[in-house]
């Protein structure tokens, strides 16, 4: 699989994740979001940016509970509402979809 962004072919794996994460930029994020039928709003970017910042600091994707807590804090809502919000923004799940758009490694394990 590949994806053309600004005239450059970007390689994707069979699940549509970046083969070379170093290629990530905001235009690629937008193009990846498009493959997922996600229209990036400010709220989407807030999460994508948090994921990237967290990854840069810890070299791991945050557990969903940590992401949900962050979303709860940012939007002043409770845990259940924040999980709902995450799935509204990223319908195929924050681990699957948000990580893909943010250019993080593909989640592993029995997911």
């Amino acid at each position: 699989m590949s994806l053309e962004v600004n005239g450059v072919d970007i390689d994707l794996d069979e699940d549509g994740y970046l083969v070379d994460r170093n290629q990530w930029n905001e235009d690629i994020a937008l193009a990846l979001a498009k493959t997922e039928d996600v229209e990036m709003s400010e709220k989407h970017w807030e999460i994508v940016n948090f994921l990237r910042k967290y990854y840069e600091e810890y070299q791991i994707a945050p557990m969903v509970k940590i992401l949900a807590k962050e979303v709860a804090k940012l939007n002043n809502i409770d845990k259940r509402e924040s999980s709902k919000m995450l799935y509204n923004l990223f319908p195929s799940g924050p681990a699957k979809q948000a990580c893909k758009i943010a250019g993080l490694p593909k989640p592993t394990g029995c997911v």
Partner: protein
Amino acid sequence: MSASETPLLDELLKGPWPSFVKEMKEMADTKPMVRDVLRQLEKSYVDKKTHWKHGGIVGVKGYGGGIIGRYSDSPDEFPGAAHFHTVRVNQPAGWFYSSQALRDLCDIFEKYGSGLTNMHGSTGDIILLGTTTDELEPIFSALTEKGWDLGGSGSALRTPSCCVGPARCEWAMFDCLDVCHELTHFYQDEIHRPGFPYKFKIKVSGCPNDCVSSIARADFSIIGTWKDQIQINQEEMRKYVEEGANPLTSAVLLCPTRAIEWDGKEITIDNENCVRCMQCINAFPRALKPGKERGATILLGAKAPIVQGALFSSVLIPFMEIEPPYEEVRDLLERIWDVWDDHGENKERIGELVERMGKGEFLDQIGVEPDVQMVFHPRENPYVFYDEYYEET
């Protein structure tokens, strides 16, 4: 499909036990994807290694789980096996079906996938073994149209399961099917949208025979028990003896606490010493029945070896009445999940958290009083973390 393509697998068509190769070959006639999966499997039998690629992240909209992505590591050689994803479908409680419901499922599986299933997966789901990414949304619509939904996967509540329970067993101490069904429906969000540190399994067994292996396999085990006296019907006991049964070798000598006596005419049971193991009841179901004050023991923390070693569930609540709407069970579950949410590390099962934290501290955290029945014996080592001490005034 011609026999010559899979000579090693064809060896497994022989012999009396039903053959999975036959199941696959029958589908290969109409499904090219199954033919390629068989050819790939033959290759594994030749070179003694798997040819499925690591991982795979696919799914349906709105769900974080329920589908396991699977790709061939040799898609050029086996194009039909390139995508071969698993769809987990939440089974009905107790694995009861009408033939009509199963036929509906078969039609869906044949139309949108390989036509191969696992009845059932280890956690209890109905497994559709093999479909492509493009078919996931269509299969999901077809399933929900007929009243089926996906099961759990990833760091989520996995599909709960239960034994046959009161539907067909005289030893069910509570309505296992109803608890299983109600918890499944109450926690749809926890099943479909992974938000836990790792997987969490609930298994419900109606009695200590534990036909769903809850104590070995569930993070949260609900196992039926009773508090009062075993009900004895002496006449039926004597009938068993007339029929040739031997109470000595089938009950008295096998009782783990030597709580039973048989004097040739009557059976007596020292109920205060009975540990509710079921042996005598298993051996003489007409004559001996569990007591009337029934409920369940709640045990916590079972898992297979990865990462910190295998664990059995251990006693958390020695006795709980299990009555609809199961608020007490849910309240306990949610307190456990809250503590896990606060303290659990990535991919740490609840049993491992209890091990790391210490059961005593964990009990404090979830607000459950310690009980001597939670341990086989009190501690042997003197390394105690005392909370209380006096200061000189």
